[in-house]
């Protein structure tokens, strides 16, 4: 199990190598990449800002949940922070498992949860000189324990 945030470019092969085992028949790698446009507006680049200390804890919690679905702890998640260019990998998720159904479910769970729970924000710069923080999603809040 591996989770990290990094300011350096993500190498997909290196993330793949963090998982896999002779016991496994299925490996799945998801890469999020920076698109050249967002809702029709040409993008020149973007910056990810993270609450780093918390983000690694949240990521670790999500990975533990996914490991339950996967049946293995062979999961690696790396999220990029700082300045990114078009085509750069923003997030890499690798999982491996004896069987493929669990690999697909766990990988999908990881990316969906990460997108609503990870305290990371995206600042997009556009070709026309504009720039803004992307509208994000409100993380699901824990219930109050009550009186």
């Amino acid at each position, binding site marked *: 199990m591996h989770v990290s945030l990094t300011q350096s470019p993500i190498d997909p092969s290196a993330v793949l190598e963090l998982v896999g085992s002779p016991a496994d028949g299925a490996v799945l790698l998801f890469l999020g990449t920076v698109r050249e446009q967002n809702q029709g507006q040409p993008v020149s680049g973007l910056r990810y800002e993270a*609450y780093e200390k918390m983000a690694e804890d949240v990521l670790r919690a999500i990975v533990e949940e996914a490991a339950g679905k996967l049946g293995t702890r062979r999961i690696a998640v790396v999220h990029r922070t700082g300045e990114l260019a078009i085509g750069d990998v923003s997030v890499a998720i690798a999982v491996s498992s004896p069987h493929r159904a669990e690999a697909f479910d766990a990988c999908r769970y990881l990316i969906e949860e990460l997108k609503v729970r*990870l*305290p*990371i*924000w995206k*600042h997009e710069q556009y070709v026309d000189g504009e720039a803004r923080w992307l509208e*994000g*999603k409100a*993380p699901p809040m824990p219930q*109050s324990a009550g009186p």
Partner: protein
Amino acid sequence: MRIRLLLFALYRDLAGAGELELELPAGATAATLVDAVRRRGGGLGRLPETPVVAVNQEYAPLETPLREGDEVALLPPVAGG
């Protein structure tokens, strides 16, 4: 009690700072803190009434009681991935 407040992304831009030290009365909750911060006015007056809050790096309801030395963060809607 003394609280360390962290502000990120849009909220940091509104505040003009990523980190503030706050002095709050005993018995204060995260909600007390949010009220106090919004009353400072300026950019911070534009904070939502119920922003997402983390206390000591964990998402926490606004009713969460605060303690001396807590690290509280106000988090805009997230957009990782």
